[in-house]
């Protein structure tokens, strides 16, 4: 029996090794191809580059405007994360700690959104944004992102706030603090671990967000990285500029990979905590 288990474990390790190797090889292929010229690439898919063509990256960054998209994505993700986490924390606190009629209804109102596919309300939202003059603008996208982040944020943070001892608000109020100050000075700082988890999760989702930037953004100068990459893919492969496309692909992949490498433990811990609570 033990032998069989050992053998199976051996097979499992082999399998996993093969999977990881292929995955790594595919990614490596993208990276080293991004340094080739298109002629080299067409001549042989497998060959290593003869020299490092940084011009591919220059092309992707400047001509294809990936640099611009990088900037857009950074500031949009940061603002949206801040907004979403904050507004979500505010709402979560009230929903978790304040007793008022229809409290449960309000909570489910937010949480229900996690079960609803975006495609259901795609067109009405699109038309509505158009009427509000919020299409093709970062303002509109930002407001939408903040709104989109609320359900998950509230989901995690209400759970979190509930775990804090009841006496905390009482103590603060008895000490003479106003309810407003109690929230901002006492309760919110205590929620920091939860806030960090939620912020990481939100940031990653906004950074990668594609669907709504596809629907709402039409001017090139407003694009985010994901939207820009899609346009790049459709345009550059038509022109058979594969190596420049791969350079753009690396530019998009790199930031999150690097961040992940540095913060691997933090991120996985936070994500498991959030996911397992479900």
């Amino acid at each position: 029996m033990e032998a069989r288990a050992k053998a199976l474990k051996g097979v499992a390790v082999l399998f996993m090794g093969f999977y990881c190797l292929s995955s790594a090889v595919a990614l490596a292929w993208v990276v080293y191809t991004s340094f080739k010229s298109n002629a080299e690439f067409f001549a042989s898919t497998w060959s290593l580059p003869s020299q490092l063509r940084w011009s591919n990256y220059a092309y992707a960054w400047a001509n294809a405007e990936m640099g611009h998209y990088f900037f857009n994505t950074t500031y949009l993700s940061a603002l949206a994360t801040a907004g979403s986490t904050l507004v979500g924390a505010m709402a979560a606190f009230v929903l978790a700690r304040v007793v008022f009629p229809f409290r449960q209804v309000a909570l489910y109102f937010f949480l229900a959104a996690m079960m609803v596919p975006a495609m259901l309300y795609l067109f009405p939202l699109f038309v509505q944004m158009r009427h509000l003059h919020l299409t093709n603008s970062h303002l509109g996208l930002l407001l939408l992102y903040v709104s989109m982040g609320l359900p998950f944020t509230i989901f995690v943070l209400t759970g979190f706030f509930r775990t804090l001892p009841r006496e905390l608000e009482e103590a603060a109020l008895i000490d003479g603090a106003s309810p407003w100050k109690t929230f901002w000075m006492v309760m919110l700082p205590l929620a920091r671990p939860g806030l960090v988890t939620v912020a990481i999760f939100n940031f990653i989702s906004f950074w990668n967000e594609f669907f709504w930037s596809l629907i709402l953004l039409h001017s090139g100068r407003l694009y985010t990285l994901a939207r820009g990459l899609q346009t790049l893919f459709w345009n550059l492969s038509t022109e058979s500029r594969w190596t420049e496309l791969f350079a753009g692909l690396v530019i998009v992949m790199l930031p999150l990979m690097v961040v992940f490498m540095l913060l691997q433990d933090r991120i996985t811990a936070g994500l498991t905590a959030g996911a397992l609570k479900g």
Partner: protein
Amino acid sequence: MHRRQFLRCLAAGSLAGACGRYLPDEHLLEVSTLQSRAAQIPINQLWGEAADRLMGAHPGIRVEPASGGGGGYQELMIRVMEGNPPDVMSFATAETGLTYAYVEQGHVLDLTQYLQGPAADTPGATWLETIAPLYYNTLTYQGRFYAIPQNVISLQIYCNAALYQQVGASLEPRTWDEFLDNCARLKAAGIIPITQDGIHWYTSWWFDHLAQRLVGAEATGKAFRDPERSVPWTEPGFTQAARLVGEVLDRGYFAEGFAGLNHIESELLFWQGRAATVFVGTWFTSGRAEVMGEGFRLYAHRFPQVEGGKGDPHELIGTVQTLSIPARARHPDLAAELLRIIDSRWFQEQMVEKALMVSPLVGAALPSAQQGLERLLADTTRFHPFSFGLEGAHPFLYRQYWNEWNRFMVAREISAEELVHNLELLFSLYYQSSPA
């Protein structure tokens, strides 16, 4: 206190900035075709330069991409409906030229007056006179002009001139038999005769064209668009058209495995010199400078006629990329001026040279890359829209149409007789169940 005041100012400032979006901008001209100048697509660069010229002539005016431009067609239409359209946009859907429904609903400005004014940089001629009469019918509705042309989009057969000459094939096959002869020679020499996208609607062009050659444009148009079914698909001419394509397939003239190729991959075979013929449109060369390589000799000839066919071989399926001014645009005169610049010799010549597009102007040179197109266009008497307008008018039916065609041509699941029978069924059902 300081922080509070700062926050208040910040909030007020953002609110003001946000509201600014809602105030009408008197000095803004919105153009839907204008796009970001990077992503070096030459036509975008040119548009940028045209906009610069306009801004130079009218200081104080800004020309910017319209919200919803560059593919956001749905959004543009919503803007038109809510009375807040951009100043320049195209009222054409897909490849069907001017869409009449919009004109009928009064969304499009009548441009006839502007067209009778002087041309941009051709002294002594009106704007209208600089445009080749061949394209007039794609710009008019009931005798009035509602659009101006930017470039020509037509379908023809492109050949790798070097390979053709190598095997002694004719670069100007007049009849279908001569065309088949070309294919035979290529195949004998080990070259793939025809490369083809087998996944999308590109395959259905073979059918459209053969139908027009055999049965005539008017009858084909009726088969596509007449709800009364005065010309059903079961007309023998259409079956014959399908059979002719079947012959080409049976003889193995199409690239093997074309069933799984999309247009980019199939065109790659052509550019790499492995396939010698491709049936595609004039957009074929735009942006392909990198993959074409030096010294590639491209030749275009018109779709051959079929012996004994009723169709006029001098007719082409194609259209022009049109631009119009919405009826409720805020700056119609300025918009018209911008459009005049687009039709100027300066813009058109650059377009031909750098973007490798075909110009609709009288006597315009053709892109050096597309030899043979001159004769083609000179010989053409009429333009018919792609799928005779089916795609723009009835997109769901169009989808079913080319899906059914692919069952015949690509999957080879049904015979020519079954194909026309199924098509007639589809079309009758559709037209019966839809209201207008």
